[in-house]
């Protein structure tokens, strides 16, 4: 079809059309400019105990701040991606951006609006994947980097303009490498020595080698030959596979390491998947002993996922029986045990059987915080004297990944 218009109509149509489109073009351009109003500074929180929870869910992650006075959320830090952890030096909180983030972000406990600094911990590498920060003093800390053969030594006290002086050195773990990196996943500081836990998974993330603990002198940053390694390695050879966490209990002067075995059923590993357990390490002699074995494929109490030692007579253990076939949620049970005798309690903690448990922490008031992921995430609070859930469930916005507790003094921060 072809149309013929009168000249007047043509002119009119052209005007209308031009006005329409030019107006629309301008309008669209103008309308799209965001008014990205910054989050107002939040510098007026009351003194007291606070929990800072690294959380993730729905493709995002953030640190959420909770007052322990009433267990309510009273602030969130800028959102980022999902793989987060958190550490504290006692006065600030440090957001550890792990896989695909590779950052360390220092935040003031009272100001949720902006960081003190945010630095990459990749250096010349990529996918450094920091897992933990261990503070030696105000000006020295170690960044445990899961995706690298090097642990970074940093000065956490630098300001945002002084990134050049942030990284002060490295510890070399390359001798433990079993496929790209020794997969250092945690560390503890004991008497001037840094004990670094390494999973030593292979390139396909299969637990084909036993875990190791490397020991460094924090004064000289030299590695100590413990005499407990094999194949000439200076560190301490564990007897378990795929260790998940390391903890020091001063009351018993012991280090505890939880080995998970082949918990994820990696088919590259053959044989009995139950090659985990809780091992103890003497921080002076480096002697190692199996405190609590996870058993065998024929007889076991499920895989050991993670443990928390509360006192010489009380520890908690998350055991894992598998993963939900539809939702992939882990199926966990919380049990208590005696860290001195290694005896597992006959009964699991009531209410925390065959459910998903993300992590364990002890709050300043002595309550055990049991992190629960899922559709209604948060913490169950356990009275460690009775092993009973007490109080109300502390709901978080996103699923809890890690927690630190900080005592916030009287606030004097400036706006």
């Amino acid at each position, binding site marked *: *079809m*072809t*149309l*013929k*218009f009168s000249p007047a*109509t*043509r002119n*009119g*149509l*052209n005007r*209308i*059309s031009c006005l*329409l*489109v030019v107006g*629309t*073009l301008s*309008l*669209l*351009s103008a*309308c*799209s*400019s*965001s008014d990205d109003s910054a989050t107002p500074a939040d510098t007026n929180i009351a003194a007291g105990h606070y929990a800072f929870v690294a959380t*993730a*869910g*729905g*493709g*995002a992650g953030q640190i959420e701040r909770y007052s322990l006075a009433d267990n309510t959320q009273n602030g969130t830090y*800028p*959102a980022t*991606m*999902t*793989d987060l952890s958190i550490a504290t030096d006692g006065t600030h909180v440090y957001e550890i*951006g*792990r*896989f*695909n983030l*590779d950052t360390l972000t220092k935040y003031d406990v009272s100001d949720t609006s902006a960081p003190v*600094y*945010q*630095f*990459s911990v*990749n250096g010349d590498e*990529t*996918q450094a994947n920091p897992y933990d920060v261990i503070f030696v003093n105000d000006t020295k800390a170690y960044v445990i980097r899961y995706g690298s053969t090097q642990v970074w030594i940093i000065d956490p006290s630098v300001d*945002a*303009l002084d*990134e050049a002086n942030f990284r002060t050195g490295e510890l070399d773990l390359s001798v433990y490498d079993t496929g*790209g990196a020794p997969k250092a996943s945690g560390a503890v500081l004991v008497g001037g020595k840094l004990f670094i836990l390494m999973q030593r998974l292979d*390139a*396909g*993330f299969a637990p084909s080698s036993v875990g190791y603990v490397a020991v460094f002198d924090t004064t000289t940053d030299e590695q100590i030959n413990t005499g407990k390694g094999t194949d000439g390695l200076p560190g301490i050879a564990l007897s378990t596979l795929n260790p998940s966490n390391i903890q020091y209990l001063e009351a018993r002067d012991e280090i505890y390491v939880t080995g998970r075995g082949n918990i994820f059923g990696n088919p*590259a590993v053959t044989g009995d998947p139950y090659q985990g357990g809780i091992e103890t390490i003497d921080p002076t002699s480096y002697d190692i002993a199996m405190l609590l074995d996870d058993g065998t494929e024929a007889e076991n109490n499920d895989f050991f996922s993670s443990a928390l030692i509360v006192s010489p007579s009380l520890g908690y253990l998350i055991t894992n029986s598998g993963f939900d*076939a*539809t*939702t*992939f949620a882990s199926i966990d049970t919380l049990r208590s045990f005696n860290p001195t005798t290694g005896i597992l309690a006959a009964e699991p903690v009531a209410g925390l059987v065959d459910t998903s448990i993300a992590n364990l922490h002890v709050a300043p008031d002595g309550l055990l915080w049991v992190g629960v992921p*899922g*559709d209604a995430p948060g913490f169950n609070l356990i009275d460690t004297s009775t092993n009973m859930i007490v109080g109300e469930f502390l709901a978080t916005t*996103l699923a809890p990944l890690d927690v630190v507790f900080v005592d916030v003094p009287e606030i004097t921060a400036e706006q």
Partner: protein
Amino acid sequence: MVNLVATTSLLTILLTASTLLWADETLETITITGSAEEAEVTTGNVEHSEFTGVFESIDSELLKRRDVALGDLLAFEAGVQSRQTGGLGSFASISIRASNSNQTAVYLDGVKLNNGGRASIDLSALELLNVESVDIYRGSSPLQLGHGSIGGAVNLKSLTAKDKASTRVLIGGGSFSTQRLQASHQSRIGRWDIVAAIGKLKSENDFRFVDSNGTPLNLLDDTRQARHNAAVAQNSTLLRTSYRWNTDSNTNLLFQLNNKDLGVPEWRNADDNNASFATDDQQVQLTHSINGIGDWNSSLTFFQHDGDSHFDDREKGVSLAERDSYSDSVSRGGKLYTERVGKQGTLGLTTELRREELASRDEVLNFENYAVERDALSATVQYAWFNSSGKLLVTPALNYQSVNDQYNGITRRNETTHTNRKISPQIGALLELNSTLSLRANIGQYYREPAFYELFGSRGLIRGNENLNPESGTNADIGISYKPQANWKFDATMFASDRTDLITTVYDTIGLGYTVNAGHARVYGLELAHQWQSTNGFSTEVNLSLQDAKNLSNNQAINNNALPGEAAVSSFARIAYKRSRYRVWAEVEVKTDRFYDEANLLPAKDTNLQNIGLDWYWRNAQTSLAINNIGNDIVEDFNGFPRPGRAFFLTTTLNF
């Protein structure tokens, strides 16, 4: 929100005002004096006069563009949004009405390209040169395409020969070391039609962008960098021949080959990363159409689509673990469309039987290897009924789908086979109130069987879930079309969609994805489209989509949030003016209010792209200059994957 309201209000006012002004000014003066050239229609092609849903055909001038990808062109239309991971040749997909790319069916000459082995079609791998026209169906899909999908359908029609033989050679180049060479020939020799086309694209895609060094809260360490490892090399070939036996029957043979080698950039833009993704796709389709066997017309197509891919990341450039993964997919089968045209309407039946196969293997992690087969039957019957005046069209339809899977090396719910059957009804109505105004309404159910990678995993980055249920959805829309003259069209559509058992990928804390039936989504929206073309060279197009796409989840952090990646407001406007040997155009594309994440904590920067261009026609040559993204606005459709900034592209086309 203020912006949204302002945009909506002002656009509505503009459109309404222009409509009224047009009406006042033209009722007495316009006369129709000519006739439009009708496209050749063969049985099996979509019969738009019997389709009650919403569709748009991409403007033929737009399809000559070589500075953008097919996905970009589709996203100019209302209700369609595109996403691309980088520059030309990088993975590109579209969503229609907030569906995802798996839920948007892409067809080549009426045969579906999506299959169990490749649920999402990479639109950048489809060469524009090989395409004569593109139709987009939103919500409802026409009978001839079969079942369609939850979002809708895109039908690419390959080049056909014309009465006059033509040969075309295109050479072009532009920013980021982009080079393009294309040649095509179309001719008719007696009863034979012959089409041949070849194309080659190379681009370094080394565009510059501001890299945050992974620290968005620290501007001091930002650097301006070139994108690393994003180069693409792509080749395409199309051969098509058809033979006209007589006026009632013809046979078509189509062969299309596309291969692409693509670098896979690392999220942190690491310069030592050399991960790559290579694809080889070929489609062969043989169609015989015959009319007039009694009252029946039929079209029978046999097809085989092969798609091979190789993801090589043995040096862990982008993956947590070494990967050297191969995926070979095949879908082959037959599709029969048959119709009986009666006095009151047309009874049509589309039946398709196909076998889809996927062999997935990894040379590093060989325990993840598997092979699966799926036999799928789809049958859709529809009656397009017209009332006696021909003003009312009603199209009730019923679709039956069945799948029979066989698994080798893996199981699903401990079984090596799986069978599922579904029946889904659809109905549409179109009422012509007068010669310029028509109303339409559609409602229908759709479902999608999980793809193989969703069931069994992919390249170690996605863990499969053998317990997935099919996605299902109900789409409904109601709309008005105002077309006072052939060169002016205004269309408004309100739509709603309710989707359950949506398959989404959730990521754990180490970045491994898990596919789950995450839940339920409800989408409402409004689409406005306005097109006008004057006789003295001006043409304009304005499209606006507003949608409220909500995730209804049991997870409190996600519930009632916007679906990730979907802009609540998307709009596009273009003005072009052609005079003598020149044509100039300007366009703007805006997307606002979207999030990267389901928790809606990571807002995406608003998109505001302006493009301008000039075409110069001289004898048998056309030279085109396009300047895209003149504001140099770096957009990230996927978080951490920037698209190019300002880019120049110059092409010359010689027509013989």
